[in-house]
């Protein structure tokens, strides 16, 4: 089962909302969002080989066929329900948001001319004039109101329902002005409106078998689980773009097939390819790649309330037994960065650089296990294809264990139903966590005593109180200090082993121009279609 890769689903939406209510600044929120994606300036975490990407003259025309990695009959054109990469890419082509984030992570206006507020509680959104939907209808305030209010209706099943709830009033001022009143001041509304789910649709739309948006491409066909085709919108409101005549998006789940299709020229863009294919892609001049490292990680969870995690020394021993270098080099072929058992990534401003990653030290692990009386005891380690590379990581761990007489048994289980069946439940298992923008969200979600996803059942009153303190701390330095301490606590005390940060690699034809990295994820934050062009 493909889990939803969005950063903004379920519980943590509530966290964001919570934080926003507390009045975090717009800039703070932006930083948080950026940390989840790629910050162009964040040292070393971005690699760009697209030769044509920078400072080239756009070329008009051509068809781009791009392939993602997953799609199913659950594919949708309803932005509120979008959950897979395929959905985001599709929605970005057909619809627009009020605002969007550029490659530097700055908020830019898209459909909105301005989003302004005096008190950060009552906001006024002014719309650009002359924008029309694909069916010719002009964009007016009612459309924005309808689009935003949908998220409040529970029967719609919006993924951002909890975030949208803070909008207590959405009303029309005039044809091109909408008033949004929040239940508490929040300066980050413009950033929130840049989320993919807040795409603007025409008023009264209930049928999503086709898309009627304002986007750069007009939906020509859409078949769930098959493909979508868009043709250039001649009346697009932006001065530049789209350059492509048409854009086709579908998924090729098999990595090899995706790359082969790219190399044979059947597609021009293959998203998220396996690092193992790097050697092949490198040898091919007609193909380029884009690598970005974000806060995504696959971690080993050892529940502290169950055997063997409850035995002193086991968790620490396992952290020493994790051969991070082997994981980085073998499982990810170098497309990963070594991590230090806590969830805040190096691209985050609160990352604690003083906390070194543990060395691979089997002897130390052995003495710890020996003390815990666990040497030779069979310990099942649950892994699955559902958690990226967890089977390989488990194998590496198992092998290291066998060298010191530790009897780890890899238990590979189906991807299907993994998140509801094994994740959080098995005594020792792997999980996969998508990037979250702030330490607060990560900690509240994953490590607080009452956290819904407390993967290792880590309980610490001290930690909980620090979390509350940091949330209220207005002093940036104090806050940083607390977060650093909390990272250290997690690294030393929690039952979660986080070996590496996983990078993402997209491959595409070298003819592709205009591609830039984006903090919201691969494929230029899924919105690449309107910005890229095909050189001759």
């Amino acid at each position, binding site marked *: 089962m493909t889990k939803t890769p969005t950063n903004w689903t379920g519980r943590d939406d509530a966290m964001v909302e919570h934080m926003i209510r507390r009045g975090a600044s717009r800039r703070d929120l932006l930083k948080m969002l950026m940390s989840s994606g790629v910050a162009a300036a964040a040292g070393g975490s971005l690699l760009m080989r697209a030769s044509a990407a920078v400072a080239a003259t756009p070329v008009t025309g051509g068809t781009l066929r791009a392939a993602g990695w997953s799609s199913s009959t659950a594919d949708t054109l309803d932005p509120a329900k979008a959950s897979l990469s395929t959905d985001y890419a599709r929605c970005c082509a057909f619809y627009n948001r009020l605002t969007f984030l550029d490659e530097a992570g700055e908020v830019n206006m898209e459909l909105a001319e301005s989003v302004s507020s005096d008190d950060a509680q009552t906001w006024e959104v002014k719309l650009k004039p002359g924008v029309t939907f694909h069916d010719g209808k002009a964009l007016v305030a009612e459309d924005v109101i309808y689009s935003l209010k949908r998220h409040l209706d529970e029967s719609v099943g919006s993924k951002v329902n909890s975030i949208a709830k803070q909008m207590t009033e959405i009303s029309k001022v005039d044809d091109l002005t909408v008033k949004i009143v929040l239940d508490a001041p929040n300066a980050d509304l413009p950033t929130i409106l840049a989320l993919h789910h807040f795409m603007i649709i025409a008023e009264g739309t209930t049928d999503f078998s086709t898309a009627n948006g304002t986007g750069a491409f007009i939906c020509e066909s859409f078949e769930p689980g098959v493909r979508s085709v868009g043709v250039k919108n001649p009346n697009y409101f932006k001065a530049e773009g789209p350059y492509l005549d048409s854009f086709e998006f579908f998924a090729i789940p098999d*990595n*090899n097939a995706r*790359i*082969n299709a790219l190399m044979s020229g059947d597609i021009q863009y293959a998203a998220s390819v*396996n690092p*193992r*294919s790097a*050697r*092949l892609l490198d040898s091919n001049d007609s193909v380029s790649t884009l690598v970005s490292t974000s806060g995504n990680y696959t971690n080993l969870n050892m529940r502290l309330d169950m055997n063997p995690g409850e035995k002193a020394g086991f968790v620490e021993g396992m952290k020493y037994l994790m051969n991070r270098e*082997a994981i980085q*080099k*073998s*499982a990810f*072929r170098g497309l990963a960065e070594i991590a230090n058992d806590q969830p805040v990534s190096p691209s985050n401003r609160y990352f604690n650089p003083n906390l070194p990653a543990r060395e691979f030290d089997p002897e130390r692990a052995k003495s710890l296990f020996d003390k815990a009386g666990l040497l030779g005891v069979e310990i099942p380690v649950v*892994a*699955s*294809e559902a958690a990226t590379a967890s*089977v*390989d990581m*488990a*194998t*590496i761990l*198992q*092998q290291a264990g*066998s060298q010191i007489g530790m009897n780890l*048994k*890899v*238990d*590979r*289980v*189906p*991807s*299907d*139903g993994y998140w509801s*069946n094994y994740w959080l439940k098995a005594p020792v298992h792997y999980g996969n966590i998508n990037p979250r923008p702030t330490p607060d969200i990560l900690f509240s979600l994953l490590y607080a005593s009452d956290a819904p996803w407390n993967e290792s059942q880590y309980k610490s009153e001290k930690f909980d109180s620090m979390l509350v303190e940091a949330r209220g701390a207005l002093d940036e330095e104090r806050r940083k200090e607390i977060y650093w301490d909390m990272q250290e606590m997690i690294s030393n005390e929690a039952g979660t082993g986080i070996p590496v940060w996983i990078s993402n690699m997209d491959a595409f034809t070298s003819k592709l121009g205009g591609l830039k990295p984006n903090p919201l994820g691969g494929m230029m934050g899924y919105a690449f279609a309107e910005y890229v062009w095909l050189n001759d």
Partner: protein
Amino acid sequence: MMAEYQTTTTATDPPKKKGSGWSFNWVGRIGLAIMLFWGLVALAGPWLAPHPPGEIVDWDYFSPVSGEFWLGTDYLGRDIFSRILMGARYTVGIALAAVTLACTLGVILGMIAAVAGGWFDMILSRLLDAFNGIPSLLFGLVVVAAVGSSIPVLILTLTAIYMPGSYRFARALAVNVNTMDFVTVARARGESTRYLILQEIFPNILGPVLADLGLRFVFIVLVLSGLSFLGLGVQPPNADWGALVRENIEGLSLGAPAVIFPSIAIASLTISVNMFIDNLPTKIRDRSE
């Protein structure tokens, strides 16, 4: 006409030397030799393998054949030679166990259905037809969800997937044999169904059943890897040969030995099994022809 011909030759033959019908030709012998070779590897694999199957011996991946790594390394940099030796145990063992079980069960049920006939035959045939209708993916998932995963469960799952076909095949053969006079004689003697099936019918459908088993064996070897990716069965760091091919398939573009040698191993095993069965001693093969 044929009968006359047969008596023609047999009657003029001096009595055959005992055991002469057991000899078989060189093709069968080669098949047997390869099977025995893999059987030995399966037994002695752990002692022969130069590296543990999960050990990463090389930071490089898909590396070519070298003096150190005889058959190259896989996508994680593990020694393919060792992994094939270790995998033999699973591929040979599980496939043999599953194919034996599936055929035994299918053949026994098929013979019972053929002999008993009537509603028993009808209901069993319908049920197994219906069972065929359940997609094996769904079935595999249900098994893992319901009883978890282990080698015995894997074997039983494969058995369940391949049994209906074997049943259908054996039933058709047994229906034919069941009409022969010697079965009637035994029945007239008052023999039990059990005796009829085991002593009278079974020896006479053995030949085709074995040929069918050979083909089924090939399919099981291949399906095995599919099921282990569902999380059913062979657990890392070990892998059956099909899984070795599958996990290294990305090496195909690079011409990596990691994907080629496991394929060769599979082909050599399946072909040898079929070579052996196709050239079984005439005594076994001709009984039912």
